[in-house]
């Protein structure tokens, strides 16, 4: 499906993080459409809605109230309609085992939230472009694993 824009979604309960995120994409040259959600329930409701435009890349914070990132991840992976979405876990630091666990559960990308805005921009740009390559070059998304 060609669109001019790359669709991005973020689910994060932290207001500041949402702000950083949207600002970063604003400053990037890539054509993107960014939607943010405050918690897992809001996110899943959107994704499960038949009329919704599904994102190319979904950024998931792990620690959210009502429904946390891991629960969303598992739910999305079980849903065939949502198989095309590249899922990036966007979280504060976790243990090695925990990070590996998110990959095993189906996440494509793990991003540790950086402490510097420029770094954030760089990371997001890289994620989106690599994802775009997968998308446009017919590469196997199952092998799409990235850790930043």
């Amino acid at each position, binding site marked *: 499906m060609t669109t001019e824009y790359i669709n991005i979604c973020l689910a994060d309960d932290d207001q500041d993080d949402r702000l950083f995120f949207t600002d970063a994409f604003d400053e990037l040259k890539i054509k993107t459409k960014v939607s943010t959600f405050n918690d897992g329930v809001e996110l899943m409701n959107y994704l499960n809605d038949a009329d919704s435009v599904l994102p190319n890349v979904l950024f998931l914070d792990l620690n959210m109230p009502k429904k946390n990132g891991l629960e969303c991840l598992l739910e999305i992976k079980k849903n065939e309609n949502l198989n095309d979405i590249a899922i990036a876990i966007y979280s504060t*630091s976790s243990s090695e085992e925990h990070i590996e666990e998110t990959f095993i559960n189906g996440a494509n990308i793990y991003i540790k939230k950086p402490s510097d805005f420029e770094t954030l921009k760089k990371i997001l740009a890289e994620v989106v472009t690599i994802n775009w390559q997968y998308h446009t070059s017919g590469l196997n998304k199952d092998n799409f694993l990235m850790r930043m």
Partner: protein
Amino acid sequence: MKDVQLRNSTIFLKIIFVISAAVIFFIAGITFKHITVLKKSSKWVEQSHNVNMELERLISYLKDAETGQRGYILTNDKSFLTPYTESKTLIRDSYKKVSALTENSRTQQANLKNLLFYINKRQNYLSKTLYLTQQENYDKKILNNYLIIGKSAMDSVRTKIENMMSTQQNLLQNRQEDYKSTMNYTPLLIYLTLLVTLVLITISFIKMNRDLVKLRKTINTLSVANEASNLAEVVGGFGSWQYNLETNEYNFSDNEYRLLGVKPQSFKPSLEEFLKFVHPDDIQYVIDNAKNIPTNSILPPFTYRIIRKDGEIRYFRTLGRVVTIASGERTHIGTTSDVTEEVYANKFIEDRNRELESNNKELTAFNYIASHDLQEPLRKIETFLSRLVTKDYSNLSKSGQQYVTSIQSSAQRMRILIEDLLQFSRTNKTEKVFEDADLNSLLENAKQELTQIIEEKQAIIESSELPTLKVIPFQIQQLFINLIGNSLKYSKENRTPIIKITCSKIVANDDEFLPNNNMKYHKIIVEDNGIGFDQEYVKKIFILFSRLHNKNEYEGTGIGLAICKKIVENHQGFIFAKGVLNQGAAFFIYLPID
């Protein structure tokens, strides 16, 4: 075993007794027979003697008659005729006696008849002679004739009597002959039997003696065992009971009573009596379990409370089993132990565990706070600062710019410290899985993680074959990363870093670092040719956050080796270090071989 022996003894003794009785009866029988024979024999002798005597008398009477007659004939004195007249009756009586005495001998009866003939004949001629002599004139020739015939009759009588006497003698001898054999072998038999009996009795005696000795020993052993068992009960704080499945009766040991706080055998042992001591809440439980005693062969242990006579509550554990004893009876034997201390100790441990768990939960919560809640505001600070710098740096005053820069570096330092702290507290053992891992792979992974620096420094890493061990793989990998990373970080400038990793098996006794015992370890040495360190500070380097260089010389927070130490301790191992300034450092890791 002894049991069977004793049983055999009983049978053996019974047999001996029966044999002995039989023998005695046998002897009695024989003796009786012998005596009867003796009696008979003596009777016969007597009889023979009587016969002979009578016959002598007979002849004597006849002789008297003869003599009397002769005397009369010579003297014509009538007084001489008295024996003659008396003799008739006497002879007749005597003859009757003999006849009676020889009733059972036909030979003698025949002889008697014969004798009678001659006696009669003699008497006849005696009276004839007498009659003749009483005549005035008598013919001497006839007298002579009569006398000669009379004499021959008398001779015949005499002969006959002698005949009869010898016959009697023969008869007697024949009879004696009969008895002789009996008489002969009877004593032999008796002696033989007596000998046999003597032998049997001796055997019985020996056997009984032995059995007695055995019994005595057994009784001794039993007494000792009984005493020991009683003592064991007192020392061990338990009592024992028996339930006889045939008689449905209980038996309590002395200590069973003492456990309840009462005098031994102070009440008749029974379930009802025991239940009186059981805690009211546990009575049904005990009853339910005790129901199994008559029916099941095993009574599994169950714990309940009792209230002693003095009001103290104790915890008891009872268990039992059916045992078949020597006589074939089945008895249910069980013990009751006072496990109050154990129960309390367990409770104590459970309480401590709960305490530790809640401590652990608190620590985990702290962990979480440190990772998420503390890092979060710090990250915001840094991010907003970076935004500030990007957008408004030029708008700040000189001092403002300086301040912001300082704030940034402090915030960064703080973040790194918190990250390191977090990593350190994550290096624990709880909920970590120990699995078999090839240490060579883990080393490879570590080298891959450090690829960039290895490339940069053109470092050479040599390793010998490492074992496969049960470890927490991530942690051992981290151990290698930290040590090799350090070697790379603290490498000497202008010198190609060479890092050697070797492994060997050693026994604690033989090693310079380990305590003296026989435990076996894998000894892994990571040594480098970097800047080394002063051996004086060897203990310091493993301390959390302790560094030998300041942050301007070499970056780092001083946590790497502390983490290494923790990892090694998680695996029940040891880590030591040796360093020579400007030459290099070596780290010795010991992991137990289990």
